[in-house]
C-alpha cells in the first residue's frame, strides 16, 4: 500500500520507492530507504502534508511525494 494510506499511529516498512532523480535522492538522503520503518504521525489540519517518524526524527512531506513510497503494515 501507499505510505500516504497509513493511518495515524500506524507503522509500516518501506518496500519500494518509485521515481528517480532529485526527489528520490533527496528522500534517500533523509533516510527514506527500502526496508526502513516509518510511523505515520499526523496529517496537517488542511489535509496535506503529512508528518512521519523515520530514523527517530520527524519528517514532513506532501501526499503527492508519499504516494510514490510503498509500504507494508507492521504491527
Amino acid at each position, binding site marked *: 500500500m501507499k505510505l500516504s494510506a497509513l493511518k495515524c499511529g500506524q507503522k509500516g516498512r518501506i518496500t519500494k520507492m518509485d521515481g528517480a532523480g532529485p526527489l528520490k535522492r*533527496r528522500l534517500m*538522503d*533523509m*533516510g527514506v*530507504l527500502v526496508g526502513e520503518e516509518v510511523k505515520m504521525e499526523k496529517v496537517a*489540519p488542511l489535509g496535506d502534508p503529512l508528518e512521519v517518524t523515520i530514523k527517530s526524527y520527524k*519528517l*514532513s*512531506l*506532501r501526499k503527492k511525494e508519499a504516494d510514490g513510497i510503498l509500504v507494508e503494515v507492521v504491527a
Partner: protein
Amino acid sequence: MSTSANSTSQVHAVHAHGKIKKQITIAVAGNPNSGKSTLINAIAGTRLHVGNWAGVTVGKKSAFFEYEGTSITIADLPGTYSLSPYSQEEIIARDYLVHEKPDVIIDVVDATNLERNLYLTTQIMELGIPVVLALNIYDEAENKGFKIDFAKMAGILGIKVVRTIATRKTGLDDLMRAAIACAENPAAHAPKRLNYGGDIEASAKILEDHLRQDHPSVAAAMPPRWLALKLMEGDTHVLEKTGLDESGLLGKTLRHLRAAHGEDIESIMADARYAQAAGLTREVLKKPDIRKLELTEKIDKIALNRFLGIPIFLAAMWLVFKLAFDVSAPFSDWIDGVRSGPLTRWAGVLLNALHAPAWLGSLAIDGVLSGAGFVLVFVPVISLIMFLITFLEGSGYMARAAFVMDRLMHSIGLHGKSFIPMLLGFGCNVPAIYATRVLESERDKKLTAFLIPLMSCGARLPVYVVFIGTFFAANSGTALWSMYVLGIVIAILIGLLLKATMFKKEAPVFIMELPPYRMPTGRDLMIHTWQKTKHFVVKAGTVILAMSVLVWFLLNIPWGVQNKKDSLMGRMGQDAAPVLEPAGFGNWQAASSLMAGVMAKEIVVGTMAEIYAPKKEEKKDAPSFAEDLKGIGTSFIQAVKEAGSNVFGGLGIKSLSSSESPEEKAGHAPLRHALLGAFTPLQAYAFMAFVLLYWPCLITAIAMKQEFGSWKIYGQAVLIHSALAWTVAVLIFQGGKFLGLG
C-alpha cells in the same frame, strides 16, 4: 566557485611581526538544525562576516581571527543532509570542500539524532581531509538518557570526536585545539576508509587506479576515492567538472556495476552509507529502554492539532505582526521627528553660520538629510522583524507554520513557508523580502518575492487615507478593505500565472524536517539581527542617499525654477501624463507624484501636497538648542510608552488603521480641497489601485538586490507590476465609466 591560490592543504607559515605564525582554514559542515549556526556564532561571534556565495541566494558566513597563536580562517558551509549534487546548498558545500581544500573540516553532529547526521559524516570522510566531529547538543542527548561512547566512536572512525554544547559555549576550546592539531599533522589524522562492502569497494579500487594512471591531473585535483565513488553514483555534476566521459575502462567498470545491480546504483550507495551510519550508531549509542513522550511531541499534539493548529498559527501570526509593526512604528516616527525637527534646524543654523548659498542648504537638508533619515526610519522595523524571524526559525515553529499553511500556499504554487514573508508584506515590503530567506529553494524565494509587493504595505496607507477621506468618507472602511482584497486577489492570480509560465520548469518539493522545539540563544538572536540591520543601513544608505539627491535635482532643475510644473520632474510628468490618460488621471500632477513615489509610496502624498497646495513659509520661533535636546529625549520616552501601549492596548493592529490624528486632518485640508477639484471619485479609486500595484519602491528594490544578488528580479518586478497597475487602473476607470459611475 574559483579555486583560490592558497588551496594547498599544508599549514602555511607566514612571517608576521617578526615571528612565525601558523595559518589554517577550517570548514564547518553539518546537517540543518544540528546547532551549526549557534556553534559558529559562539566561536566567531561578531567577527563573522556575512555575505552570499557567488551568484546565489545562499548565505555565506566566514570569519578570520587568531586563536592561541594560530591565524584561523573559518568558513561556514550551508547546512545539508548530504553532498549529492541536487540542491544548491549541497553543490556549494561540496565544491568548497573539493576545490578549496580546507586544512580541516569540523563536522557538527546532532547527538540526539546520530544516525541521520552520521550519514553526512560518511560522505565528508570520503574526501580524505582531516575531520573533527563536534558531538553537539550533547546536553539534550544526556537529558534523554542517551549514553554515547564517544571514545569508541573516535576509534572506529579514526577521527577526533569532541563533545560540545554550543548554546553554553561548552567544549569549544577543545574543538578548536583538536582542529588545529589535525591541521598541523594531516597525515596522522587522515580519516579511516569506511568499507562499503565487497562489490562497491572492488569497483571503487579499479576506478581509483584507473584515474591515477590515465587521468593524473584529475586525480591530483580531486580526492580519487571520492571521485571514484561519485562516478559510480553517476554524478553528472562531477562528470561535467572533470570532463571525463563514460568510454574506455571507466565505462566498462560502470557498466559492469550496473549490470550487477541494475540502474539503481544510487540507492545502493545511499544504503551502504546508511548501513555504516546505522552500524556505528548501534556500536556507540545506548538508549534508555522506556521512551518518554518528549516535550516536542507534547507541544505538537496541540500546535499541530487538526482543530487547534490553524487558530494557534493565526494567533502566533497576529502576535508577530503586532510586535513587529506596532512596536517599531513609534520609534520610526521618533527618528523621523528628530530628523525633520531638531536636526534640520541645526543643519540650517550651521549652514547659515558657514554662509552657505541657499541652494546648497536646500540640497543638504531636502536631499541628503532627508535621504539619510529615510534609511534610518526603517531600522526599527527591520531589526525587530529579523529578531522575530530568527526566533521563529531557531525555536522550530517556522517549520510547523509551513506544515500548517502548506496546503493553502501550495495551491497557488508557493511553499508553506511563504506565508510569513507575505504576511509581513502588509506591514512593510522591505523586511518581508529579507524574510524570504527562510525558504530553501531559489524558485520559492523568487516567486514569493514577486508577490510580496502586492501586499498593501503601511506606506500606501497615507495615500488611501487622503483619497478615501476626500472621496469615500461615508464608506471609508469598505473602501480601504477593498484595496487590501484587490492586492490579495491579484497576488493569487499572478501566482497561478507565474507558476504556469516563468516557474513552470522547476517542480516544487516539500520534504522538510520538523526539528525539535528549542530555545534560541540570546547570542544568536542578537548576532543575526545586528548583521542584517547593519547590512541594510550600509547598502541601502548609499543608494537611497544618491536617489534622494537625484530627486532633489529633478525638482530644482532648471536652476531657480519657481513653478514645480517647469522643473525637470514636472516636465517628465507632462510627458508621461498621456500614458495615464486611459486610467483617468492623465495630468502632470498625478504623473509627477507617482514618479516621486519610486522612493517610497507615501511620498506620493507629500509630493501632491507640494504641487496642489504649496505650504506657505511659516515663521515660528525656533526652539533653543537645549530645548531641542530635551525634546529629543522626551519624544523618545513618549515613543517607548506608545510602543508599550500599542502592544497591550487592544487586539487591533494599530499600524493598519486608517484613522488620522486631528493635526494630520488639518494639515491635509488644503490638499483635499484641491483634490476634489481635480479628481472624480472613480478617478480617485483608479488612482488608489494604481498606487497599490505599481512599481515596488526603491528600498524594496535594494532588499531584492541584496537577497538575490542582482537587479534583474527588481527589473522584472517593475515591468510586471507597472503593467499590471496600468491595466487594472484602466479596467476600473473604463469599466466604471461604462457602468455610468464616472
